[in-house]
């Protein structure tokens, strides 16, 4: 199917999309990492993004979170154009993410990692912080409490004071999620959250993600390699190959799409 045909087969629903990706393109020298990708993520969805290695999924995440500028295309979030905003402004608007290669603040404790992400929701500055004037003391307390609560939620409460880089790999991934949640996002982007996990852990992760959606009224967008996980968890899935969108729809439909099958089989 061609791109316009795919889009026509899935007209936008009546509700306004939370994230609207329009013609995103990113070129690196001669390489088209992301090629005219368009789709919309509805509020409350768990949206999956899959594709063979090098398909452009993480680049797309980087484009969405302002880490790199697009060569062309637009990005709308809750109706607002955020196409060339810087990462911290996008974070302030309510989009949080985790990273494919885990980017924790390694020398800081788990608790401090999560506390830092409370930055946009607190205001105390140099003077109020140093002199202990309001709102600093209250904010410190609240920041700490919220951070603890989030760590408990992902099962790291007992490890709050441990140095992040000393944590086990699976714990580090969960810490990244807790940190992203501290941002109080409406949209959470997870980049390969299940990488390196065994099947038991993957099951826990699925449950956690569903729980997070309900508990925090989140919309989730996740990149994943483990196809069964994605199929079981996501409401809709977009498939990328060589930077292009080749399929979009509910899991059952995507699973049987010949283009998708060929992309994965062909890539082996």
């Amino acid at each position, binding site marked *: 199917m061609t791109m316009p045909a795919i889009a026509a087969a899935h007209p936008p629903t009546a509700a306004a999309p939370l994230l609207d990706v329009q013609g995103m393109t990113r070129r690196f020298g001669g390489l088209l990492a992301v090629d005219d990708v368009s789709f919309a993520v509805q509020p409350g969805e768990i949206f999956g993004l899959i594709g063979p290695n090098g398909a452009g999924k993480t680049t797309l995440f980087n484009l969405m*979170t302002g*880490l790199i500028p697009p060569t062309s295309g637009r990005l709308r979030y809750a109706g607002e154009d955020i196409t060339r905003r*810087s*990462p*911290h402004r996008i*974070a*302030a608007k309510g989009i*949080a*993410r985790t*990273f494919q290669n885990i*980017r*924790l*603040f*390694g*020398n*800081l404790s788990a608790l*401090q990692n999560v*506390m*830092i*992400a409370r*930055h*946009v929701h*607190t205001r*105390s*500055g*140099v003077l109020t*912080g*140093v*002199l*202990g004037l309001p709102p*600093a003391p209250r*904010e*410190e307390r609240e*920041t700490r409490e919220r951070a603890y609560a989030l760590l408990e939620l992902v099962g790291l409460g*007992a*490890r709050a*004071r*441990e*140095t992040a880089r*000393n*944590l*086990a*790999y*699976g714990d580090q991934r969960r810490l990244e999620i807790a*940190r*992203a949640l501290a*941002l109080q996002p409406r949209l959470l982007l997870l980049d390969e959250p299940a990488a390196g996990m065994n099947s038991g852990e993957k099951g826990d992760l699925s449950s956690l993600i569903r729980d997070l959606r309900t508990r925090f009224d989140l919309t989730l967008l996740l990149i994943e390699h483990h196809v069964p996980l994605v199929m079981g968890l996501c409401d809709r899935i977009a498939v990328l190959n060589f930077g292009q969108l080749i399929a979009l729809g509910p899991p059952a439909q995507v699973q049987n799409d010949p283009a998708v099958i060929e992309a994965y089989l062909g890539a082996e």
Partner: protein
Amino acid sequence: MSQFFATYGDLFVSMTLMAVLALSLYLPLMAGQLSLASPGFYALGGYVAAILSTNPGSPLLQMFPYRGLFPLPLLLLEMAIAAAASALLAILVGVPALRLRGIYLALATIAFVEVLRILSLNFDITGTAVGIFNIPQPFGTHIEYLWITGPLLLASMLFVYRLERGRVGRALIALREDELAADAMGVDPTLYKVLAFTLGAILAGMAGTVTAHLLNTWNARQGTFDFSITILAFVLIGGSRTFLGPVLGALVLTALPEVLRFLADARLVVFGGLIVLGSIFLPQGVVTPALFERRQNRAPRPGAPPPEAGLGP
């Protein structure tokens, strides 16, 4: 006893001032920025004091004429003015320069210091190559300067200590750990890097103001590249990860050449040698955060079985 103070008064005062300067480098370093710009602001602060207290056209002298020793309130006023001037210059220079990282930033700050130095060599108001003389003294003896430098150091230490523990400090440290991730978590890198840079500049400027009075003269030889290396040594050897490191590094390394006076001419050679050894064997300096950890974190290695319940921290 008074003989001791007379001989070592200068040394104690220098030690405290060097410690303040070490903190001025530590602040941008907290945000992961290696800035060698402190001597530039130090020189600026010194010239502020020198010009305001000796230049016949100085508004300070005209508004507040005095007799005898230079009045303390005027010194404090000079420090405030130096702080403001340093902050302004820091923002002006910092906003464009702090987009650079690593070695490029270090080079830019080196260039900044050199440009300032050469400008001061050429301007009349800064006394060109000769500099400015007869800067008045607020105190009768040198050791009395501790009344100013002591509180200045203590206030700076307290300031940095409190800053580290709050929201701003966390933002700075996050930037140092991983600027990209910090950005993605809502910390504005430019704002906080410039902030750290500016705070450091303020400390350096105030130190310069006091030193100009202490030394009685001020010239272009006060803010040089050499000096930035010395300050860097204080921080790197003393400890680059906690605010006590730079202070201790400065105190000890300023006192050491005096104590080891017999080394005299060779003392800078020893200094340089210490820097090399320090970089190789003590990359985090002497005073490390590990020294303060009361509980050792024995985390399980990835893949190892989790510790039994009941043995938790």
